[in-house]
């Protein structure tokens, strides 16, 4: 039996190289979310810019919204920020920020310097709401319908192309209602 144990490192390495090989050739596809077509989790969390204000699901249910997970420690978030500002200017949908595992001062500063595309920001300091939502890292963006049900999840930077796709989905939501 101990002899077999000695093969474990080899087996692990083979698994790793299989994944690296796959990484070379795999087709792009979306990361499914456990919460697709399920309601957004309930929460009671303070707002980022007004620490005394408590936010909950009731603050955005009623119309479709985008929930964008971001943090100041995440370089890709800075990259997508311009696009988020443009989306906010288009005025087709509100963006709710989910400030994930961040420092309040740094995040406030970020919004002051780069501009604020968000209707309001949920300050998820410990990342508990992110955990409920199944967030892997930042940035991630979720499309919620008017009932607060998660309809789509986008992992990674939101680009102009992503916005085109999202608009199609938002329109589809509107038609259905």
């Amino acid at each position, binding site marked *: 039996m*101990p*002899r077999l144990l*000695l*093969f474990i*490192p*080899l087996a692990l*390495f*083979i698994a*790793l*190289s299989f*994944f*690296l*090989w*796959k*990484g*070379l*050739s*795999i*087709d*792009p*596809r*979306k*990361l499914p979310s456990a919460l697709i077509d399920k309601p957004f989790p309930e929460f009671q969390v303070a707002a980022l810019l007004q620490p005394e204000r408590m936010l909950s699901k009731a603050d955005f249910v009623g119309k479709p919204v985008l929930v964008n997970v971001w*943090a100041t*420690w*995440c*370089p*890709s978030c800075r990259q997508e920020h311009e696009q988020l500002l443009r989306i906010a200017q288009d005025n087709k949908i509100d963006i709710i920020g989910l400030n994930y*595992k961040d420092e309040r001062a740094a995040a406030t*500063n970020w919004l002051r*310097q780069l501009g604020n595309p968000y209707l309001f920001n949920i300050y998820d300091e410990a*990342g508990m709401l992110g955990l409920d939502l199944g967030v*892997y*890292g*930042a*940035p*991630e963006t979720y499309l919620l319908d008017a009932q607060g049900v998660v309809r789509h999840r*986008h*992992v*990674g*930077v939101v680009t102009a192309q992503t916005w085109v796709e999202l608009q199609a989905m938002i329109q589809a939501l509107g038609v259905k209602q």
Partner: protein
Amino acid sequence: MIPELGEFALILALGFSFILATIPLYGAATLNALWMDYAKPLAKAQFTFLLISFMCLAYAFANDDFSVQYVANHSNSQLPMQFKLSAIWGGHEGSLLLWAFILSGWTLAVSLFSRGLPLDMLARVLGVMGIIATGFISFLLWTSSPFLRYLPRFPADGADLNPLLQDFGLIVHPPMLYMGYVGFSVAFAFAIAALLSGRLDAAWARWSRPWTNIAWAFLGAGITLGSWWAYYELGWGGWWFWDPVENASLMPWLVGTALIHSLAVTEKRGVFKSWTLLLAIFAFSLSLLGTFLVRSGVLTSVHAFASDPERGFFILVLLLLTIGGSLTLYAFKAPNVKSESSFGWLSREMLLLINNVFLVVMAITVLLGTLYPLLIDALGSGKISVGPPYFNALFVPIMSLLALSMGISGAARWRQTSISGLKKQLLVPAIISLVVGLVFPFIYGDGFNFRVFLGITISTWIIATTAKEFKDKFRNTNSITAKLSQLTLSYYGMMLAHLGVAVVAIGITLVSTYSEERDMRMAPGDKIELADYQFEFKGAKKVKGANFTADEGTIVITLEGEPVVTLYPQKRHYTVKRSMMTEASIDPGLFRDLYLAMGEPLGNDGAWAIRVHYKPYVRWLWLGGLLMALGGLLTVFDKRYRSKSSSEVAHA
């Protein structure tokens, strides 16, 4: 002409490394002394031709030969000479050539400093290094030659080196790091030689130890330099970003740290042999993985990797052959390695094993955090970063546990130790460190802070236990000076490195808790206060450098009315690359740094966005890193590694 000569020398070097990878190994397997004897001259020949090849590339850079693609893409005629030369390793192809060159340098060093080594062991070690060199030089020649030309039409001037890399830090940081990465190939080759020959005794461990220690010291120094470079060059005042490139160097360092300790136990007690071999394989495998993850661009952009499938495929095959091959060999041959003694549940062996496990768990944590975004990216789902929250949440507790058991293992005895004995040894250091940890945040800061308490307590714990152990050496001696010279360099090296850990821990704790920073709009004449210092902005003016123009601010700093220093941060504009760079200006100090960076110009009244940092104890990070590296270096000069009698011990 010269670049073709470089390419030709590279081809010859490949020929020699291929022979090195076959003949001596075959000789060792068939006990043919003549064939084994080829190893040394082949190592010299391989080094010579890689040296020629490297010099040819250096010549092309020094003489602005922009017909060479690699030179045209990474240099410029306006670049100062020292940066032209360091631009050799400013890109993928040149870095790989430097890698291969350093590998041949280590091979040469092993062949020169190996008088005590039995011939078959030497032949195997050099042969294994020859295999690695063959793989790398083939990779260079087939997919990444730095000598390709733009002919007949070539650009009149080069595209210039990335401004971030035009800095003293880049001149020394990559070679230092590669010395460490590639240095682990020696420990790896020794491990493979041990598996092939089935001989793994105290003598084997004694041969491997200095090579492992020096590679570890180089890697540590390289990481330290990298952190320092990022701190002053990136203009954010950060010193560690958990970015994939940094992680790639941290992983082999962590496993290397485990390897050093495991090797020590293997030499002294004849146990952990199989574990030591595995660590030696891991340390080098992670170096390889790290080099490739970084150099292939797979981490910065998976698509760049995939867009050159030839390169990516070659990389993977190389990894598979080296790592997969050695792990297969390990799985089949490791059972032949037997322990020579036993040890109890509470003993120095056991505590060192626990430390080893902590270090490996940290390395795995970093590996997962580094590869996870890669996985997401490979799945085509975009770029994410798990970021500092993930790493900090896992690193701080493991590091604290490691520090705790580090202090205990120093006090424990080999084979078996008693709890009452440990209590006697550790009670005083425990009380001292708890008291210092409790009091410090009240004196230095403005109240209790758990992070500071934890950090200062574990740092003091390491210092106090190290000091106690040192003091106990003098218990049964009258002459302190005689004892001082009697203690070995290895012992002093260990003390120094352990103190280095404490110094780093203090630095991390204090700089991450008590740093202050402010972003301000400052017009000429504006003043701000930060951590008792007063900063007055005197305005900005234009200055000109060799290949850039800059706005240079003047900021006068005073402390309670007394002038401290005047700093001149710059916002540079590099003309060829057309990119902006923030050149921070720093007033360094042992207990605090004042760090100033210029943001953007604001309005017409000469106002600028100015970022002011107050960074307490930030120097301790690098000071501690250098202490560790120095400790590792010191052990290499220990006399007993160079005693001629080691070969006799081996045969005994």
